């Protein structure tokens, strides 16, 4: 059997964040009066300004005292070198702001919702550089458009994650390494990876690059709201390992226990490496080294091996067990400043599988330190993506797909040239995800043959509740509804799903298509038969564990304002089906009921 290995080596998992205090403005240096702290913010996607409600937790540039003053830029009190920063932001329609790393390298925050063609000035773009000496009309240069337009609608909360590496300088102050945007992730979509900055971007506080400087939020253009701002910097010292001594044993070791065995070979190494092992299997290797801990703190040991192994510090077992080399095993321990004794024992009692040994130590506030030689841990092998495109006409594709961590078996994904796509559970007549951007990643399903045989959205996705939205009046919406799937017919290339709903004794069709304005999807249920239950049916517009933002009478923001639902007809009724959950419903009138999803 072919082993299909999901390589997740060094994935971006451990982000130990420090939360920025947004109870007040004390994190910022001389904030202008345009900046306030608020408790809630909302806006319709068509609003050019944000409505605020008093409270704490949200940083808002209200622009109440006017705009186009650089003094309205908001500077943080702390300086940073390498930094990993995450936050959520909301822009009004036409919004324009940005985050300057080290007050010099700007990632643009802008309302680029729905734009087909984007450039460096769109949301998530790394802004252009500027030099008047280049001549009129040619001053702007460089700058990097996001790999895709990952923007959500104005008036929704969007997320941004930036991993930035500061430039490096030698002792004489000469730059020896450029600043790098290692990763920029907008709304969960990777939009830049390892872009090296050849200099500062336009609007930097100085052309002079430095090792450390504060972040800056652009405040001179439009309103912007920011919350949940977290970061990690990497200036704390971490462990240093001394010379490694090793002892090599051969024999049938199923566990990393030496027992009474005698080593057949011993030696010294600069770093841990499996390369001193001479056999493919039936061996034990025991590495020992001194570990110099600079400051008392919690240290995380992240190890990788094929076979079984154990990591011990001062004789205490941390990581252990039988693993494949692509699985990270992790354990945290508190270490005091000073010298500690590190031991790694590794065995492999089977001949297959690549040999590998890797060990990182991660301290919050410093980069991971590799205690192994680079060649001791295999580089992951990437596979070329198999993309299903929906550029010219609507397309649909059935597959298995994950929804809220569960694998669904009867999933239809429908892509549209408008760039708005959805996935749908055919058994449940239920939306699973809606997304915008490129359509579908089918690589897992169509490359080779193994598990899990799923496909996934390629664009900015919003997770739906996965439930059939029609209910009988005054009855609770179940986790599932008994439905008889009757197939689908195509209209203009788009599927219209057909169902029988036994509880209401109704035949119906479910048609999901881009809405007339092109802002989202419109979903329409049409009843093809009549039954007395029809007028006693209700449509659940949405379920939300994070409150419902009543933006207007017929426009609500759900799941922490991560998407809008809009409808015509009567205002909805809000229920509280269980603790913490809000549900909004409208009654079904006539043969048709519809609503729109906008994100």
């Amino acid at each position: 059997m072919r082993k299909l290995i999901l390589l997740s080596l060094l994935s971006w998992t451990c982000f130990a964040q420090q939360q920025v205090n947004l109870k007040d403005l004390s994190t910022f240096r001389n904030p202008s009066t345009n900046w306030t702290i608020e408790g809630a913010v909302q806006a319709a996607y068509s609003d050019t300004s944000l409505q605020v409600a008093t409270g704490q937790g949200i940083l808002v540039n209200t622009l109440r005292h006017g705009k186009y003053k650089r003094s309205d830029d908001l500077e943080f009190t702390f300086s940073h070198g390498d930094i990993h920063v995450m936050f959520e932001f909301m822009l009004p329609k036409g919004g324009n702001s940005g985050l300057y790393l080290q007050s010099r390298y700007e990632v643009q925050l802008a309302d680029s919702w729905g734009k087909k063609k984007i450039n460096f000035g769109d949301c998530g773009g790394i802004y252009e550089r500027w030099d008047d000496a280049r001549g009129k009309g040619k001053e702007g240069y460089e700058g990097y458009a996001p790999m895709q337009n990952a923007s959500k609608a104005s008036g929704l909360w969007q997320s941004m994650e930036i991993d930035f590496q500061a430039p490096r300088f030698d002792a004489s102050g000469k730059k020896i390494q450029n600043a790098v945007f290692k990763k920029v992730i907008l709304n969960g979509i990777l939009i830049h990876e390892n872009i090296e900055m050849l200099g500062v971007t336009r609007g930097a506080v100085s052309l002079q690059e430095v090792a450390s400087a504060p972040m800056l939020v652009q405040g001179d253009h439009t309103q912007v709201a920011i919350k949940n701002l977290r970061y990690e910097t990497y200036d704390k010292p971490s462990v240093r390992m001394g010379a490694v001594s090793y002892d090599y044993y051969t024999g049938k070791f199923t566990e990393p226990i030496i027992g009474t065995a005698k080593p057949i070979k011993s030696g010294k190494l600069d770093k841990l490496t499996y390369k001193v092992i001479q056999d493919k299997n039936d061996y034990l290797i025991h590495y020992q080294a001194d570990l110099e801990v600079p400051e008392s703190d919690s240290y995380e040991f992240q190890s990788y091996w094929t076979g079984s192994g154990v990591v011990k510090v001062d004789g205490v077992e941390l990581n252990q067990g039988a693993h494949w080399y692509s699985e990270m095993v992790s354990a945290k321990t508190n270490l005091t400043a000073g010298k500690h004794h590190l031991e790694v024992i590794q065995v492999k009692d089977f001949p297959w599988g690549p040999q590998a040994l890797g060990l990182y130590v991660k301290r919050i506030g410093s980069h991971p330190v590799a205690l192994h030689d680079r060649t001791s841990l295999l580089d992951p092998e990437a596979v070329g993506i198999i993309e299903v495109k929906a550029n010219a006409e609507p397309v649909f594709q059935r597959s298995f797909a994950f929804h809220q961590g569960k694998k669904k078996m009867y999933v239809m994904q429908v892509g549209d040239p408008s760039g708005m796509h959805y996935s749908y559970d055919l058994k449940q007549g239920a939306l699973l995800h809606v997304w915008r951007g490129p359509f579908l990643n089918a690589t897992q399903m169509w490359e080779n043959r193994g598990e899990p045989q799923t496909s996934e959205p390629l664009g900015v996705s919003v997770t739906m509740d996965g439930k059939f939205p029609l209910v009988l009046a005054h009855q609770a919406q179940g986790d599932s509804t008994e439905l008889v799937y009757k197939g689908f017919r195509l209209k203009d290339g788009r599927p219209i799903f057909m169902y029988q709903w036994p509880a209401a004794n109704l035949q119906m069709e479910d048609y999901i298509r881009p809405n007339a304005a092109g802002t989202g999807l419109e979903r329409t249920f049409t009843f093809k038969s009549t039954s007395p239950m029809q007028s006693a049916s209700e449509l659940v517009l949405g379920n939300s564990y994070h409150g419902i933002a009543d933006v207007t009478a017929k426009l609500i923001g759900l799941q922490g304002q991560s998407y809008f639902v809009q409808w015509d007809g009567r205002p909805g009724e809000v229920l509280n089906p269980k603790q913490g959950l809000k549900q909004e419903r409208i009654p079904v009138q006539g043969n048709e009921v519809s609503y729109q999803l906008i994100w």
Partner: protein
Amino acid sequence: MKNIHYTIALLFVSFFALAQKSTSKTEQDYYEIKTLPIPKEIYLEVGGLATMPDGRLAVSTRRGEIWIIENPYQSANHQVHYKRFASGMHEVLGLAYRDGAFYCSQRGELTKITDTDRDGVADLYEPVYQFDISGNYHEYTYGPVFDKNGDMLVTLNLAWVGFGEGKFAKWRGWLVKIHPDGTLEPYAAGLRSPAGYSINQDGDIFYGENQGDWVGSGRVTHLAKGDFAGNPGGLKWAKEPNSPFRLTLEEIQDNGAPMYEAAAKVKNLKLPAVWFPHAIMGISTSDVLQDTTRGKFSPFPGQYFVADQGQSKIMRMGLEKVNGVYQGFCINYREGFQSGILRERFGLDGSMFVGMTSRGWGSTGKDDFGLQRLIWNGQMPFELQDIQARPDGFELSFTQAVDVNSVKKAASYALRSYIYKYQHQYGSPIIELKPLKISGLEVSADKRKVRLVIDGLRQYFIHEFKLEGIRNESGDPLLHETAYYTLNQIPTGGRLAIQASNRMEEAAEVVKVVAKPVKSTKTAIISDAEAMALLKKHTCLACHAKEAKVVGPSYVDIAKRNYTDKQILALVYKPNPQNWPDYATEMAPMSHVPAGDVLKIASWINGLRSKALLNHD
């Protein structure tokens, strides 16, 4: 001009081929393969084929599309034309066309597809039946095949979790009948990987099975209602009220004894009609199709053509019924297809469309997918026509009159019989191998039939015939000289009286089968040519090549493992698939190959290492 150059090049190649092999005929001299070109942007991983009565061909793919091809017979114009009829389905591994609609299997659904506005593109997709499915990648769904009542047969692959498992989703491991009203009738069980099946002219269902757990080797089995074909993965569902039989795993012996012994205790355990010895007659049996073209497709009307995915070839199977039980023989027919064969369907002209995909498994044909046509050019090859069981042996018939001298020589034959284990482990070595002796024979008046009297016939065993010495009257050898007959039943009736006139002229050569203990003397390295001859003789080349990765690793790659010759011997006799996790198909134990030969091969393999060091930096 380009076309002319191409033609000249072809002519040159064929002249060259002729010059090289002026005497011995090849498969290509009779059974021609034509390739249907595929537009570069189409990923035609064929899962299903349906011949349409209007001269078009429909192809379903693993990427969920149905393509309709115009001019698939390439008459006058070699170019063919593709139009996408349907799309977006979930791994369509079976396709049928009936009354203007397509029926196909998706992983979780049997679907009817219609073009209601007749614009050439489907616009209505209706579920005929929704199958239970757990989401395991190995839960493939194949079909439908329509029976004469309009019911649809569908086979449901087991999940793979280190072994075949059917319990996660209902009716996995079964052949089911879906009635037009959407009800399911469980029909037969014990299926592991039933990728190909069909109904013969008498209305009987045959399916091809892949070697695996509880399946010692590839095989074709006749399935009647209530049959249990051997793999217990799906037996959970035999407890259901509508199951046609009751059986539990506990009732099945798992002691490595052959399947016929277990069948003596489990009355509906169905023995294969024909075993296809692993690595020799394929490694992954797929479609089974009876030649119903009345002589258009092949010189063997009524016989069956069985495809193999891993070895990219089509084999021939002849069946007879003895005591009411199907049994018969298999023999190679045509190799050299471009990818792994999954589907065979006859065209309107009696040629066969061959649909291919090798994704996930690899195949001898190196393309990722392909579509070809197999055509008999009407020339009569010298072939074994048929093998039929007799009370005291077999009757062989040939397509041409034989040279009587050649058939009367015992040295023209090498016969032996053996069987496989029936066990939960993956695959099986050959066991209970015995040489067979021909004691007498009789040649028919037209010299087309040879009746052999054989000592030591064994019921249920695979009887191997190697007919290297047999010639026709022009002195040509058989196009295919090796066949395997599965002797489920020995017919009753008259025996051939052996007299001086029909006694075998000389003692039959006894094939040595017992692996002798090997002394650790260093084996001299044989030449590449000698190695290739040995590798071919023992069918190693079916899965391995010297330098290229085929089904298994190349010999150069094996050399890099630094095994000793003796370790290689041990691994040939008892392979450890976990040594090669990147290869999808597990190696079968080849313990029937004499140790001396394996050691010669092993030292040759290890010689490749030093050569590699010398020749390639």
